[in-house]
């Protein structure tokens, strides 16, 4: 049997029992999250149903305009999500840097991965293009969020030290070197850690999906290895672009620390 077993609607409904159990526990224990659980479940269901129909339509059309439109929407949501996730104020220039880093970092990686590694034909073949882009954009978004958070809090917490260095004639680049390196590490570490545990601690989603749909595990791991490289590349490229430009937004053209802007 090499075909995926179709899930009937009544079977799907049975899966919601898990949520009912959770709700019962929450109510019994007087925990506060009842509303959120219900909203999250409903949102997840509606969002996925819509995406299912949308992707079905887009895959049928297989038009490069649709593919590009979806990439633009994904990128926009990812960038917006980063702005929302980071606690504390992000200055306008830093927002711009985040957008530039996300767009250039992920798009370069996506095209390299699809055109050179996968050798996708046609290049916009949406059944590959969209999910793979989603993985690269999603992981880069998580990485850059951590990097942004670390950079902002690092500069804020160590502003006296940065000023003391500037007073000696140290350039902003050297004065923030340590903080920038920490931001880079915190952005890239989750990706490296997930590579460490992959295959032993957990089976990655893409590989699981392929195996469930009847693909040989040997083919599935090949894709999984390739996509992990793609993700690592995309996260690194995005965060490198981000930190190279990001620290500069905390200084004015007189090399003065300017964190109220």
């Amino acid at each position, binding site marked *: 049997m090499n075909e995926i077993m179709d899930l009937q609607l009544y079977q799907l409904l049975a899966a919601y029992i898990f949520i009912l159990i959770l709700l019962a526990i929450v109510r019994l224990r007087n925990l506060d999250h009842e509303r959120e659980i219900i909203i999250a479940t409903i949102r997840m269901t509606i969002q996925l149903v819509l995406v299912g129909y949308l992707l079905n339509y887009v895959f049928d059309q297989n038009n490069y305009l649709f593919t590009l439109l979806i990439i633009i929407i994904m990128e926009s949501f990812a960038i917006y999500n980063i702005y929302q996730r980071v606690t504390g104020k992000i200055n306008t220039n830093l927002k711009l840097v985040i957008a530039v880093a996300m767009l250039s970092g992920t798009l370069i990686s996506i095209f390299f991965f699809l055109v050179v590694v996968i050798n996708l034909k046609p290049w916009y073949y949406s059944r590959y293009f969209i999910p793979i882009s989603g993985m690269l954009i999603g992981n880069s978004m998580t990485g850059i969020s951590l990097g942004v958070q670390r950079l902002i809090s690092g500069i804020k917490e160590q502003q006296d030290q940065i*000023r003391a260095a*500037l*007073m*000696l*004639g140290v350039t902003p680049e050297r004065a923030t070197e340590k903080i920038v390196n920490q931001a880079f590490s915190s952005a890239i570490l989750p990706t490296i850690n997930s590579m460490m545990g992959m295959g032993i601690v957990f089976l990655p989603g893409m590989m699981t999906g392929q195996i469930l749909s009847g693909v040989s595990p040997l083919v599935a791991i090949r894709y999984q290895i390739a996509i992990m490289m793609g993700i690592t590349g995309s996260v690194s490229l995005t965060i490198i672009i981000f930190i190279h430009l990001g620290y500069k937004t905390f200084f004015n053209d*007189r090399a*003065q620390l300017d964190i109220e802007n």
Partner: protein
Amino acid sequence: MFFLQDVKYKDVLDISYLELSEQEVVCIVGPSGGGKTTLLKLLNNLISVDQGRVLYHDKDVEEWDPIELRRKVVMVSQQPITFTASIGEELKVGFDLTDQEVPKQEKIVELLKRMQIDKDLSTDIDQLSGGEKQRLALARSLLLNPEVLLLDEPSSALDRVTEQKVIEQLVNYAAENGITLIMVTHSLIISQKYCTKIIKIKDGEIAG
């Protein structure tokens, strides 16, 4: 050397005219919150004036490359800030961060002695008292051999006896090496004994 004209910075500082010459030991005195530190920061271009001009060697500080200016006009904040783990590393870090050649070991050790730090170069910075850290920061900035050294209360964490010794060494070292000293101080003894020029700043204005 420094020339200030019609300088205004927020509601903090309002100086119509001020001239500071080379090779002097200038003391800036006055009540807390009067704008003394702000004046130092303006000279170091760590902040910029809202109005008026600050000239260094006849050139507006805003036209200097800020990094180049700050390497000639080094400032040390009141709270001593350290960047490394040991005394030895700390004395070299200024050179490392500004990509300059580290001076010879003897010079480093000599300066450490003159700043009254009787400790080994390998000593952990965490083991130093506030006063020792302050003197370490002084030694670090003197080693950089700037044209001007701006010091914000360089002896605030020192006892009377140490204060005298350190400031005397500081003034002598500056004279030997052609460094102009401009320091904010609350100490009457220092301003009377060592300063060649005293500027009193009150409520952001020069009061004498």
